[in-house]
C-alpha cells in the first residue's frame, strides 16, 4: 500500500527480468500523475543518451484521486520520445488507471531490453516477464485476443497494453493500445516498447483501499457522480461526443481538409458527428471509473464475398481521428473514415500523426515532390484504397520514403521538399485551424498537443486579445490542466473539478496537506515539467510554424502573421522563464 506521503513505484528491469518496489517522492510537492511522471523521468533519465537507449525509462503513473472519484480515470505515460528525442508525456484511459490503483502501483518504471519479445505482468502477488515471441508481428487486435487467452486471471479488472507492427518497427509515432479503444497515442511510446522487446504489459488490479472514516467521502462522491451524470455538465461528451466539433469547426472555416489546403467543405455532412451518430454509432463505452461514456464505437459492416458474406468491425471514433483520417485526406464518407481508422489502429500507429503525415504525402505526390516510386501506393485525396495500402507501408517502414515519413512529416519534408505545406506544429497538427493562439500553443506546448492549453478556445472568442493577455491565459490554463492531470483526471472533467472541488476531494481522502496547497503545488509541477522538457533538449527556437499555417483563412479572416510572431516570442519567453 502507498503511504499518504510518498509514492509506491515498481521499477522493472527487462534485461534482468526482475523488479523492485521503491518508495519515491513527496506527494505534497509533486502531487502525482503528470508531476510524478516528470519527477520520475528526472530521476531515472540518462542525460545525453538517445531516446531508444534501453536505459531510458518508460513511465506510467496515476494520481492521488485515481479510482476514488468519477472521471479520475487516466494514466500518464512519460518517456524520451523517438520523435524528437526529448521528454514526452501522453495520457491514456481504458482500465489502466484503476488496474494500477488496485494493484497498489502508483507508478511503473520500465528499463532495459528483454532478450525476447515479452509481456510484463504485474499485480497483486504477480510480477512476471513472459516470453511471447509468437505474438511479434501480430497486429494490435490479434495480439489482444492472444493475450486474453494467455492470461486468464483478473478478467474485467486488468488492463492490457500492447503494440502493433508500427511499434515493433520503430515508427516515431507508434502508439500503445490500451484495452482496445484507448491509447497512449502521440510521440511514439509504442516505438519505445518495441525497442525494448516489450510487446505487451498486463496490470492486474484485484485489490482495494479502505474508504476514509466518516461519511464525507460517500457524500462527496455522490455529489460528483450526480453532477457528471446530470443532464448538462458532460452532455457534449456523451451525446454526439467530440465528433460534434466537425460541423462546428467547418462552419467557421477552421476544419482542415486535404492537408489543410482549405478549411471548409460542403461535404461535411458525410463525416459530421451527426452523420456518425445516425449511420455508424453502435454504442458508447467508458473508461473504468467514468460514468460519462464518451467512447463512441462505430459499427462498420463490410461485404467481403459474393454470397452475402459480411464481416463487421467496431471502431472507436472521436473528433481528432475523423479529422486526421477523414477530412485531412479528403474522405467524405463516414464508413470509409472508420475503415481507415481501423487499419491505422490495427497497425499500432497514432491516428492523428499517421493521418496528417499521409495528407502531406498526398500533396507531395500531387506536386511532384515525390513520385509513386516513393509512395508505392497511388495517394489521392478522397481515395481510401491508396491510404489503406500506405498505412501498411508506413507501419512496415517499407522503403526509404516511409522510413523517413515514419520519423515525422517534417523529417520527410526536409528530405524530399515540401516543408511549406507540412502541417506540423512540434508534431503533426491537431484539427484546429482556429488561429494564432492554437498554432503557438501546439507548436510550443509541452506535449505539442491540443490538450496542453485551450488556445483553440481563445481563437474562437471574438477579437484577438493582447499578446500579454493571451500568454497569461495559456500559461494559467496549462497550470489548471497540469493540476487535473496530476490527480490524474480526464481532461473532459475540467468543468466538474474546479480547484476548490479538487481540494475538497483530496481533503476527504486524507490528503489535507496537499488540499491546502494546490495553487503553489501546481505551479511547482508546471515548472518541473518544463524544466524536465528543456533539460531533455527542447529548443523552442528550433520549432517551426510552416507556411501553410500562415495561409489559413477562417471566419476571423486571414492569420495575423505579426500577431502570430509576437505571441510565439512572448509564449516562448514565458515557458523559458518557467523552466529556469
Amino acid at each position, binding site marked *: 500500500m502507498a503511504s499518504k506521503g510518498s509514492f509506491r513505484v515498481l521499477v522493472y528491469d527487462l534485461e534482468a527480468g526482475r523488479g523492485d518496489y521503491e518508495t519515491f517522492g513527496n506527494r505534497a510537492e509533486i502531487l502525482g500523475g503528470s508531476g510524478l511522471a516528470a519527477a520520475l523521468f528526472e530521476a531515472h533519465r540518462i542525460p545525453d543518451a538517445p531516446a531508444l537507449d534501453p536505459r531510458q525509462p518508460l513511465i506510467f503513473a496515476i494520481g492521488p484521486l485515481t*479510482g476514488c472519484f468519477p472521471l479520475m480515470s487516466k494514466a500518464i505515460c512519460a518517456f524520451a520520445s523517438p520523435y524528437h528525442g526529448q521528454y514526452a508525456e501522453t495520457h491514456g484511459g481504458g482500465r489502466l488507471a484503476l488496474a494500477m490503483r488496485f494493484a497498489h502501483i502508483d507508478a511503473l518504471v520500465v528499463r532495459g531490453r528483454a532478450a525476447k519479445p515479452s509481456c510484463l505482468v504485474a499485480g497483486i502477488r504477480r510480477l512476471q516477464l513472459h516470453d511471447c515471441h509468437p505474438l511479434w508481428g501480430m497486429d494490435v487486435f490479434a495480439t489482444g485476443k492472444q493475450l486474453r487467452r494467455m492470461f486468464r486471471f483478473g478478467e474485467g*479488472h486488468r488492463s492490457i497494453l500492447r503494440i502493433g507492427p508500427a511499434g515493433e518497427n520503430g515508427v516515431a509515432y507508434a502508439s500503445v493500445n490500451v484495452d482496445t479503444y484507448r491509447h497512449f497515442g502521440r510521440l511514439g511510446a509504442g516505438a519505445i516498447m518495441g525497442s525494448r522487446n516489450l510487446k505487451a504489459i498486463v496490470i492486474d488490479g*484485484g485489490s*482495494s483501499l479502505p474508504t476514509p472514516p466518516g461519511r464525507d467521502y460517500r457524500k462527496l462522491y455522490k455529489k460528483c457522480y450526480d453532477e457528471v451524470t446530470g443532464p448538462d455538465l458532460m452532455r457534449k461528451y456523451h451525446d454526439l461526443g467530440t465528433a460534434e466539433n466537425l460541423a462546428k469547426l467547418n462552419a467557421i472555416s477552421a476544419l482542415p481538409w486535404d492537408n489543410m489546403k482549405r478549411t471548409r467543405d460542403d461535404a461535411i455532412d458525410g463525416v459530421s458527428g451527426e452523420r456518425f451518430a445516425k449511420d455508424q454509432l453502435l454504442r458508447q*463505452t467508458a*473508461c473504468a*471509473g467514468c460514468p460519462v461514456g464518451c*467512447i463512441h464505437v462505430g459499427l462498420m459492416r463490410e461485404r467481403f464475398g459474393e454470397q452475402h458474406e459480411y464481416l463487421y468491425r467496431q471502431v472507436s471514433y472521436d473528433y481528432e481521428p475523423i479529422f486526421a483520417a477523414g477530412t485531412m485526406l479528403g474522405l467524405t464518407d463516414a464508413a470509409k473514415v472508420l475503415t481507415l481508422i481501423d487499419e491505422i489502429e490495427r497497425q499500432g500507429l497514432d491516428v492523428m500523426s499517421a493521418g496528417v503525415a499521409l495528407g502531406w504525402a498526398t500533396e507531395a505526390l500531387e506536386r511532384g515532390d515525390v513520385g509513386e516510386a516513393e509512395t508505392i501506393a497511388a495517394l489521392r485525396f478522397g481515395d481510401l484504397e491508396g491510404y489503406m495500402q500506405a498505412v501498411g507501408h508506413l507501419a512496415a517502414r517499407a522503403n526509404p520514403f516511409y522510413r523517413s515519413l515514419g520519423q515525422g512529416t517534417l523529417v520527410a519534408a526536409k528530405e524530399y521538399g515540401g516543408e511549406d505545406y507540412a502541417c506540423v506544429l512540434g508534431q503533426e497538427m491537431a484539427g484546429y485551424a482556429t488561429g494564432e493562439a492554437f498554432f503557438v500553443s501546439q507548436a510550443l506546448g509541452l506535449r505539442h498537443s491540443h490538450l496542453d492549453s485551450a488556445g483553440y478556445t481563445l481563437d474562437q472568442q471574438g477579437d484577438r486579445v493582447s499578446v500579454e493577455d493571451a500568454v497569461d491565459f495559456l500559461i494559467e490554463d496549462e497550470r489548471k490542466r497540469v493540476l487535473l492531470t496530476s490527480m490524474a483526471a480526464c481532461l473532459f472533467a475540467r468543468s466538474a473539478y474546479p480547484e476548490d472541488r479538487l481540494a475538497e476531494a483530496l481533503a476527504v481522502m486524507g490528503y489535507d496537506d496537499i488540499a491546502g496547497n494546490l495553487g503553489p503545488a501546481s505551479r511547482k509541477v508546471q515548472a518541473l515539467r518544463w524544466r524536465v522538457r528543456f533539460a531533455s533538449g527542447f529548443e523552442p527556437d528550433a520549432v517551426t510554424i510552416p507556411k501553410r499555417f500562415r495561409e489559413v483563412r477562417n471566419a476571423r479572416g486571414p492569420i495575423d502573421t505579426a500577431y502570430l510572431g509576437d505571441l510565439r516570442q512572448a509564449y516562448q519567453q514565458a515557458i523559458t522563464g518557467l523552466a529556469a
Partner: protein
Amino acid sequence: MAKILRAARMERCIGCESCSQACARLVHDLVSWSLTGIRINSAGGISTGFEARVCVACDPAPCAEACPTGAFYPRPGGGVRVKEELCIDCGDCARACPYDAVALDPETNHPYVCTHCALCVAFCPHDCLEMADLDAFRGREAAHG
C-alpha cells in the same frame, strides 16, 4: 415481498464500474471495483460488451450450504445474508457458487457477495440494474418457459 437485484439491461452497460464501486464504497467500506457484490466483466474484450457477475438468488443457496461457520446464511426469498464476524475466509462459498458470483480477495481470501441491498442501482447511469419482485419475476419466467 422479497426483491432481488437483477442486471436486467446489461446490453446498455458502458463498463464504467460505477455500480461495483458503489457496492464496495457503500456496503464494504472499500474503494474497489472487484471486491464487491457485483463485478462487471467484458465477455472477451471490451468489443464484446459487458456482463455482470452478481448473485442470482438461488433458493436454497449452495454457497450458504457450503459455508462451514454459518457466515453465509439463507436470505428469505433467495440468496444469502452475511455475518462477517463468523467468516473464516475459507473460500468454500465461492467454490460452491455455480455462477461465479462470490468474489474472493486475492490477498486475504475474504468473500464478497451481493445481498440484494439495492444500493448500487442508483449508481448505474444507464438503468441496467433493477430491483425485481422475486415471485413476479420467477412467475414471468415460468409463464414464458
